[in-house]
């Protein structure tokens, strides 16, 4: 009797396992062929399945609050879901390069080496989508007004020259305020970050000491998504840095404005090129973002703005896709869905920016953005329904 029982038991197990496995995979695996590179036929693209009701993106934590709201609104309007993983600009660029997502989001435009790395799959199209402020947030209980900081002070804080909050460099810009003798505790990003890129590009353009200490004199090394930080602890994402500042008295770090406001963390008024101390806000961000003209390849820096009332540490987030989607996405429907979303993001989606303190696209830039989105094609065919 044992004999029959045992075999039946094992047989049952196998059948159950098989059923579970079949149910789980549901045959959808067969719908996502992955072809060897260079075979000439379309690769499986961002999501694998030919279904076009979910778009996958990854990248910047800087833009995450806005993209989150955009995704919700777009879903309500069109039924298409936006699955965005906030893993940092570096991660976004990598995912886009390896075609594991449909679009990447980065606060730093692509480096030549990154364009080179993606050349096998095609040419990139970088679409500026919004603007935001990188604020210098700090944790010093007891202060009633925001601290004023000169570019030199900021560089000194983050490269380790200034170790106590009552340092003369800081006190000089804040007459009448008694700064405490607390130790400075720097919190920076440990992941490849567009926010870091904006911040360090700013520091590189305003401080020779920064370039010396962090880049060994090389401006391309003292600015970027990752730099060799001389001091401080690292945290993951804007969220991690916010957390780090919040729980360490004397902490200082650089985060996007929305994160500081949502967590009620004080941030500094920064002295801009014209000499005025500017408070980061929608107005000062917009002033800094309003360039007389933008380069044709849409790659530009907004830091250290010339605008008299502009905030000097302003940044842009680019949405990055391949120009010829036939080489990287599984189906034309998916490509159309992606392009429709991008078109929506630079038009209707912009209305969601201001409540979150992100800057909207000025008219001049919008025209160039439209041209960029229109240039995205499927083997030469346009993908937008109209025009």
């Amino acid at each position, binding site marked *: 009797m*044992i*004999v029959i*029982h*045992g*075999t039946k*038991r*094992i047989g049952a197990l*196998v059948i159950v*396992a*098989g059923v*579970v*496995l079949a149910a*789980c*995979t*549901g045959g*959808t*695996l067969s*719908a*996502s062929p*992955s072809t060897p590179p260079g075979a000439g036929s379309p*690769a*499986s*693209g*961002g*999501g*694998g*399945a030919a279904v076009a009701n*979910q778009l*996958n993106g*990854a990248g910047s934590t800087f833009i*995450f*609050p806005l993209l*989150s*709201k955009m*995704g*919700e609104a777009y*879903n309500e309007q069109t039924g298409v*879901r*936006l*699955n*965005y*993983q*906030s893993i940092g600009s570096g991660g976004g660029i990598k995912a886009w390069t*390896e*075609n*594991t*997502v449909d679009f990447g989001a980065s606060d730093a435009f692509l480096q030549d080496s990154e364009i080179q790395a993606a050349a096998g799959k095609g040419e990139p199209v970088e679409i500026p989508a919004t603007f935001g402020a990188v604020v210098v947030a700090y944790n010093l209980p007891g202060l009633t007004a925001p601290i004023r900081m000169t570019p030199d002070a900021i560089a000194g804080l983050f490269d380790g020259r200034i170790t106590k909050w009552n340092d003369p460099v800081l006190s000089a810009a804040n007459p009448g305020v008694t700064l405490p003798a607390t130790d400075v505790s720097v919190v920076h990003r440990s992941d490849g970050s567009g926010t870091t890129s904006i911040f360090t590009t700013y520091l590189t353009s305003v401080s020779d000491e920064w370039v010396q200490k962090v880049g060994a004199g090389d401006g391309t090394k003292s600015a970027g998504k990752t730099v060799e930080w001389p001091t401080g602890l690292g945290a*993951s*994402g*804007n*969220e*991690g840095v*916010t*957390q780090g500042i*919040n729980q360490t008295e004397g902490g200082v770090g650089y985060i996007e404005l*929305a*994160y500081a406001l*949502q*967590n009620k963390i004080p941030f500094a008024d920064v002295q801009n090129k014209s000499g005025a101390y500017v408070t980061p806000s929608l107005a000062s961000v917009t002033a800094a973002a309003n360039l007389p003209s933008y380069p044709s390849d849409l790659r530009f820096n907004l830091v250290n703005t010339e605008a008299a009332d502009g905030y000097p540490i302003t940044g842009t987030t680019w949405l990055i896709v391949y120009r010829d989607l036939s080489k990287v996405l599984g189906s034309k429907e998916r490509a159309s869905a992606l392009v429709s979303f991008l078109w929506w993001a630079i038009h209707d989606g912009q209305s969601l920016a201001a409540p979150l303190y992100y800057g909207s696209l000025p008219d001049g830039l919008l025209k160039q953005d439209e041209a960029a989105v229109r240039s995205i094609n499927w083997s030469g065919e346009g993908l937008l329904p109209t025009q």
Partner: protein
Amino acid sequence: MLADAALVLRPTSSARRARARLVVGLAWLTLLIALVPLVAIAGYLIANGVGVLSPAFLLEDPPGDLSAVGGGIRNALFGTIEMTGTAVAIAVPIGLLIAVFNAEIGGRLAVGVRFIVDVVAALPSIVVGIFVYEVVVVAQGHFSGLAGSVALAVIMLPLIVVSTEEMLRLTPRPVAEAVRALGLSRWRSYASVLIPTAFSGIVTGVLLAISRAVGETAPLIFTALGNNFFSADLGEPMQALPLLIYRNALNSAFPAARDRAMGAALVLVALVLALNVLGRWIVARRQLTGR
């Protein structure tokens, strides 16, 4: 031993008794040190997570806009179950067969296989994640639940092989001899007698492997990636409980997302505990009933 006896033969003075009591006191202190974090974590999770718990929490997906209050963790719960289930479907048959192989073939070949299984057991889970990324994700061209399942299967495999081998070794002698006496073929002897006899032990081993896999985050970061929406498709990126917690629990920008992550942490710990308790209960029952 004579020297030791001489030491011990001194009359038990109050000083020595006091020292012994001190040591026992220290031992109790160490127990306290070990249990305080356990209680602290339980308290912390309950305090922060119980607020979001409800039947809806387990049956709804997170809202599309992560900052919105409400919603649940259905996608993560389902993803964990599906990926772990797939991992079991991969690892258990292979693990059982490898254990049987070792028991049958023996000799140098089995030693070699055991060594490799040992190496896999020693792999830090992040290294498993990298390996599976290189082989599965890059080949597929995208992140996927399948890659996550493979990573979990790799982590579970050594646990299953070792516990099954152990159970087969512990086959009661009367059963082992009966199998030989009956002259059953290899296949028959395993399928009909040896594995069923070791069944409850194997199930315990599988349960413990599952409880380990369910809590793993590192191997899923580069394979399943995560998904804010519900997806049952193993070909797409998939959400899992540890991933949801890792990505959202520190989200100071969105308290609603953080609350959901805390609730998810509570659910995850409860799940792992339940699996552990189940495994123990099966062992206890076996000791009682002998099956």
